[in-house]
């Protein structure tokens, strides 16, 4: 009885953030799901009363009409492909850069390591809207890169403002700090002795990195991958400011569908698509977390 009370007390103490998330994120997600499946009444009445072009389930349990409609749109499919492409490219570059920086930081002296990671972490503290705008100005026609290229005679240098390439650059800029922090803090935790033992056995720096550091640092790498991927998939500010209007990315597309075209149901279908992709990206993280916890529990 007393133990049960105590457990209840612990649960109560730990519950406020979860309760808040359940009420203001969990409930809206559930409401979103039934809205996209054609239920316009109940909690969706307020939004659907002024919305255009909705698909209703009527008397049926559910309808996939809204999904079918969205997917039948060739523009949407192009935007979906662009979103996946930009996410994959950005995550790949972020991981490559973060590993390179973290590896150099790990293998160099304390001072160089400090300089490298301090540099890479700066964008974490710059508001995304400013970072995006700054990158747009920097890489656009008339920006620094074009100016320098012009000065050295490379007039063919591409202006990356309002292109998907520019979006990738900006996403990398925004996401780099988190990945560097995760991966370098993981690498710092690997003791010198492990590394030296591998080198003594004849492995080169890179072999040692690949066969020892990577497996030992797998969880932080997976965390960096998943969080970077998820935040890029759903990002709005970066593609809205830096990206082209066609193809658009799904984040700004959903926003536009809602705010400019007043089609919240279609916007929610797009959100569900982003969510679906985000879950796929999150699976390795959930798996790794589950596995590492099971390992610590059994050992």
């Amino acid at each position, binding site marked *: 009885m007393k133990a049960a009370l105590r457990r209840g007390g612990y649960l109560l103490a730990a519950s406020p953030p979860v309760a808040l998330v359940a009420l203001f994120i969990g409930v809206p997600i559930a409401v979103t799901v039934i809205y996209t499946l054609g239920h316009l009444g109940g909690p969706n009445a307020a939004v659907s009363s002024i919305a255009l072009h909705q698909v209703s389930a009527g008397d049926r349990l559910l309808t996939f009409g809204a999904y079918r409609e969205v997917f039948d749109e060739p523009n949407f499919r192009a935007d979906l492909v662009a979103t996946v492409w930009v996410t994959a490219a950005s995550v790949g570059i972020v991981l490559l850069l973060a590993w390179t920086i973290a590896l150099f930081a790990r293998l*160099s002296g304390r001072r160089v390591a400090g300089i490298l990671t301090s540099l890479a972490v700066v964008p974490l503290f710059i508001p995304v809207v400013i970072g995006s705008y700054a990158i747009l100005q920097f890489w656009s026609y008339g920006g620094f890169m074009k100016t320098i290229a012009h000065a050295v005679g490379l007039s063919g240098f591409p202006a990356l403002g309002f292109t998907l390439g520019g979006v990738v650059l900006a996403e990398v800029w925004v996401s780099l700090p*988190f990945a560097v922090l995760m991966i370098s803090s993981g690498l710092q935790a690997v003791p010198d002795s492990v590394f030296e033992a591998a080198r003594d056995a004849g492995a080169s720096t890179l072999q040692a990195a690949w066969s020892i550091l990577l497996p030992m640092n797998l969880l932080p790498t997976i965390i960096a991958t998943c969080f970077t991927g998820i935040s890029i998939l759903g990002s709005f500010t970066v593609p809205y400011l830096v990206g082209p209007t066609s193809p658009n990315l799904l984040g700004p597309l959903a926003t536009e569908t809602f705010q400019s075209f007043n089609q919240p149901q279609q916007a929610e279908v797009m*959100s569900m698509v982003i969510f679906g992709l*985000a879950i796929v990206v999150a699976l390795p993280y959930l798996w790794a977390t589950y596995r590492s916890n099971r390992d610590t529990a059994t050992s």
Partner: protein
Amino acid sequence: MTTTAERTATSRLEAPPGGRPRQARRPTGGYGLGRVALVVGVCVLVIFIFGPILWLMLWAFAGIWHYPALLPQRWSLSWWRQVFDYPQLVRSVGLSFTFAPVVMAVSAVVCLPAAYALARFPVPGRRTMLVVLFAANAFPKIGLYITIAGLFYALHLMGTFFGVVLIQLLGTIVFMTWIPAAAFASVPRALEDAARDVGAGRVRVFLTVTLPLAAPGILVALVLSFLASLDEAQGTFLVGVPRYVTMPVQMYSLVSDYPPQAAAVFAVLLSIPSVVLMLLVRRHVLGGSLAKGFEIR
């Protein structure tokens, strides 16, 4: 199979942007070359990270600046005057700095006790709670805001101060719980027990042992939450407009409706608190306080 994988990894690492060769840190063979490569790499990184910010800062002081000049043809402070003369912009600065501390404080009150409980007590379903917080983060914000709008209308939160606080709060919960939870968890129990043994009470142990040792993690979470509020535009736009137009919301209209100078001035203003806060917590962030929070244990 393995060799292909190894080779790809090797070639990847051999030619990172900035072109640092693999022998960079090997004491034998081309140490000098490695040094040079490292310096080049750092320079590329500096340009990539700082270039855009510096370029924007130049714009804030530019009177006339035509391509392809590397610096403005004429310098000017006139846009600073214009921004400060525009009451709407000044008001948005004030609003942003009202919301940010309020959101930070509410987030701390909601999350910090829970973080402590999750770190120190055998809370039933603890791991599920931490993962649920994470899953909530995976849903795209705009999709959330559309249905939250319906909920907010029903609760009469649309267009209110509290509604804006709430919508900004949602973006801070995950790290305000995770990072301090990891910080509390990393305080050695032996230290707390030792303090208890010499007669300190529970509260005293918490205030003099646990809290100071967990402080860096908490500080990082507080700063990140302050910045998240300062940065949030999409939800604030939906819930707060027209009464609560904060700096980032204002930034969107500046970017599309004004010459680059106005947005640049505003961007510099908006970045100042960020830079100050960065200097405050840089050491702790680099020390792993942030990274620890994301490895759920």
